[in-house]
């Protein structure tokens, strides 16, 4: 076996279920799964993105249909239709007990349910324009 030269990570041990933290140090979910992509030319498998969000966890727990529906639903609520549960590895600042990201928590799927309820339910209730005392 050739000697590995780059940073080494054990996916189940050091990645799955780890806490995610955004660029303002706000906790913003956990690593629910990892996207793997084949490079057919090189016959190499690359880890390309961290997946985090309610749909991703449901799929990992075996609820494939519900998970896929949730992922598609939250992607449809974004402005450009991108999947907010997909976090490319290139925006990860640090791997440790907590995984630090270079993005805002508001851009991720972890708070998608809260955002949807805020925009589609709470904002239509009279008196929604001031905070609770």
């Amino acid at each position, binding site marked *: 076996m050739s000697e590995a030269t780059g940073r*080494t990570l054990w996916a189940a041990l050091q990645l799955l279920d780890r806490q995610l933290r955004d660029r303002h140090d706000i906790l913003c979910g956990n690593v629910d799964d990892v*996207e793997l992509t084949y490079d057919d030319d090189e016959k190499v498998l690359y*880890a390309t993105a961290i997946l985090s969000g309610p749909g991703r966890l449901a*799929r*990992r727990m075996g609820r494939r249909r519900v998970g896929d529906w949730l992922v598609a639903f939250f992607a449809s609520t974004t402005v450009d239709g991108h999947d907010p549960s997909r976090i490319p*590895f290139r925006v990860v600042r640090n791997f440790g007990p907590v995984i630090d990201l270079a993005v805002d928590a508001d851009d991720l799927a972890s708070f998608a349910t809260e955002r949807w309820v805020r925009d589609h339910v709470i904002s239509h209730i009279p008196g929604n324009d001031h905070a609770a005392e």
Partner: protein
Amino acid sequence: MLLSELFATQVHTADGRLLGPVRDVRLVQDGPLDGFTAKFRVDAIVVARRSVGLRLGYHHGGVRSPWVIRRVVTALSTEVHTIPWTDVADHDPEGQRLMLQATWKPAPS
């Protein structure tokens, strides 16, 4: 494909012997550039019939102590194989089956 799907994959030797499912994956950041960082490449898989204590790190995570727990955990899970991805001959993600090359031999324990 997803890491959780790889964990559901059964690994077989070239002569058809079932080694067990994939329990962990070693990623090495030495791939082509993706933005300002290198991509993580799947370098090796950990295969075992039983997963007792595997996520404590005694088998492949460099954890050494407490030695009493290490002895118990390693005794409970004897057939743990760390297999380089280069030893994978065929991978069928749909059938959740992974076949190793005939040249692969278990590392001496």
